[in-house]
């Protein structure tokens, strides 16, 4: 049963109890217990979130912001309550700064099509890191082509750590935007966002944070980071697919032109013209994704009850253990920081002899789900002189024995291919 008005209670971080909340963890894959290690791609969902979708459609379903009838009022309240929960979760000063989108990719495109469209001119530059997801590369490439602007990259060392000293000569007086991933979905690197924000602000640029991999896993505070925009997807943080968030500073969002036009985003329409609704509705044209927004609120409740400090601590322990186990195999190289303290729970690795796809298939036969391929970061993966990597990524329900299953699975696969 969902209680959409509950404030965050707290709960002991007990992995067995957490696992019991996730129905999918009971299923078998290829006759084996599922070991789900593809959380960076999308997380599993607890019953609490699944039930909130069912409850919404069974009890509350109607349209928001337009009816005077009970269901519409309840739906509107629940939808707006979810927005407030998200705002609190990332410590946003105002809940109107939280805009619902479809996912991180749409949030990034929104900023590119509105803020950057209005603020980037010929000869200006946009600075991103060399470890971005395609979603935080391609919109800026396209914008740069269109505007005659330059797209610059911040480099990193062999361990995947950003060269902050070098950033000083990349970010300059013509920089309008610095856009960086908070945590790399390939290397696991946690980037120094607050430092990059200071450098951006120093030259009058704004900073956008791709927080798709950080908000689900660690405490994120938009004010402490001094961010201007921040994007993430609900599906990677226990929530449903099809919904994401763009957070932006009020003054920036307020000054930006709309992204899409239609119902809900207008205040007044005449046959000749229209003017725009207030934030956040200016950016939410048409009937929004009500059910999934409410379920995102349920996901935020679930994470808040566990406490993001505890979530992060659990993943740090698991990551340190996994790095140690994987590296001790001797023939596996891990991309990104070798020091577990510098990274999140995303471990991309390359086996000396077994191609990631063969490994992925062999592990799948053992019920173990990992990601293989270029991880939507082709330029980055190629920079390690490989075309593909295998990736294991953790979340609140993963255990050390699942890490053991992974390592054992890799050994089994070695045995298989060296018959």
């Amino acid at each position, binding site marked *: 049963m969902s209680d959409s008005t509950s404030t965050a209670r707290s709960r002991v971080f007990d992995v067995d109890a957490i696992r019991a909340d996730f129905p999918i963890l009971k299923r078998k894959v*290829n*006759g*084996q217990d599922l070991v789900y290690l593809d959380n960076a791609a999308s997380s599993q969902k607890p019953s609490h979130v699944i039930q909130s979708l069912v409850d919404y459609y069974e009890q509350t379903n109607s349209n928001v912001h337009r009816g005077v009838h009970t269901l519409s009022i309840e739906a509107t309240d629940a939808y707006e309550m979810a927005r407030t929960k998200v705002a609190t979760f990332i410590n946003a000063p105002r809940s109107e700064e939280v805009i619902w989108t479809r996912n991180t990719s749409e949030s990034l495109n929104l900023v590119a099509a509105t803020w950057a469209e209005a603020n980037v001119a010929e000869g200006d530059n946009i600075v991103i890191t060399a470890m971005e997801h395609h979603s935080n590369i391609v919109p800026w490439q396209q914008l740069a082509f269109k505007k005659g602007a330059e797209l610059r990259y911040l480099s990193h060392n062999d361990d995947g750590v950003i060269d902050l000293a070098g950033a000083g000569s990349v970010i300059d007086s013509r920089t309008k935007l610095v856009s960086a991933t908070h945590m790399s979905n390939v290397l696991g690197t946690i980037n120094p966002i607050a430092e990059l924000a200071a450098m951006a602000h120093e030259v009058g640029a704004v900073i956008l944070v791709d927080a798709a991999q950080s908000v689900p896993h660690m405490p994120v505070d938009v004010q402490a980071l001094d961010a201007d925009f921040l994007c993430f997807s609900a599906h990677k943080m226990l929530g449903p697919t099809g919904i994401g968030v763009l957070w932006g500073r009020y003054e920036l969002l307020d000054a930006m032109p709309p992204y899409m036009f239609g119902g809900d985003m207008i205040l007044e329409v005449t046959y000749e013209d229209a003017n725009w609704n207030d934030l956040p509705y200016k950016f939410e044209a048409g009937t929004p994704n009500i059910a999934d927004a409410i379920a995102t609120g349920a996901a935020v409740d679930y994470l808040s009850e566990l406490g993001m400090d505890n979530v992060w601590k659990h993943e740090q322990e698991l990551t340190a253990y996994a790095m140690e186990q994987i590296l001790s195999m001797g023939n596996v190289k891990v991309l990104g920081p070798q020091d577990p303290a510098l990274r999140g729970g995303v471990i991309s690795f390359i086996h000396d002899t077994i*191609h*990631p*796809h*063969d490994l992925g*298939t*062999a592990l799948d*036969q*053992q019920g173990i789900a990992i990601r*293989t*391929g*270029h991880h939507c970061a*082709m330029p980055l*993966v*190629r920079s390690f002189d*490989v*075309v*593909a990597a295998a990736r294991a990524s953790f979340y609140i329900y993963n255990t050390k024995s699942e890490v053991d299953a992974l390592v054992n699975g890799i050994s*089994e*696969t070695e*045995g*298989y*291919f060296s*018959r």
Partner: protein
Amino acid sequence: MTGGMSGLGDMDELYEAIILDHYRSPRNTATVEEPDIDLEVNNPFCGDEFHIQLKVDDDSVSQVGITGRGCAISQASASLLAELVKGKSASEVESAVDAVRRLLKGEEITHAEADILGDIEALGGVRKFPVRIKCALLSWVGLGDALQDHLAK
């Protein structure tokens, strides 16, 4: 010997001995001088890439060289392809490419085609692993297209 009994499930159906053999020791990997067909094929999904070179004399393939990197399936498939095309006429290669496509899709192939394909029939194991069909098809599709271009010249 691990495999079927060890929790690796249906792996043996995908990685038959002949596939592993071609993966470990790919055939025809030498560069071809002045090739008539010279193409790069790659699978953007997984990054696998192969360089295929053929020399065609008197309407039949006299030399073939395939190099590249990829998974066991795509490498074995490329090596099997190289073995098959040698000495074949362009139209024989085209029919073989067509038969392989049908084999991998799970469609019927004739006895005559099975005879021509020989060891290549082992690639049919990918049918149980649909996401791997692309790996097996990579070099074949590229070659089919290139041959058509060559014939059209």
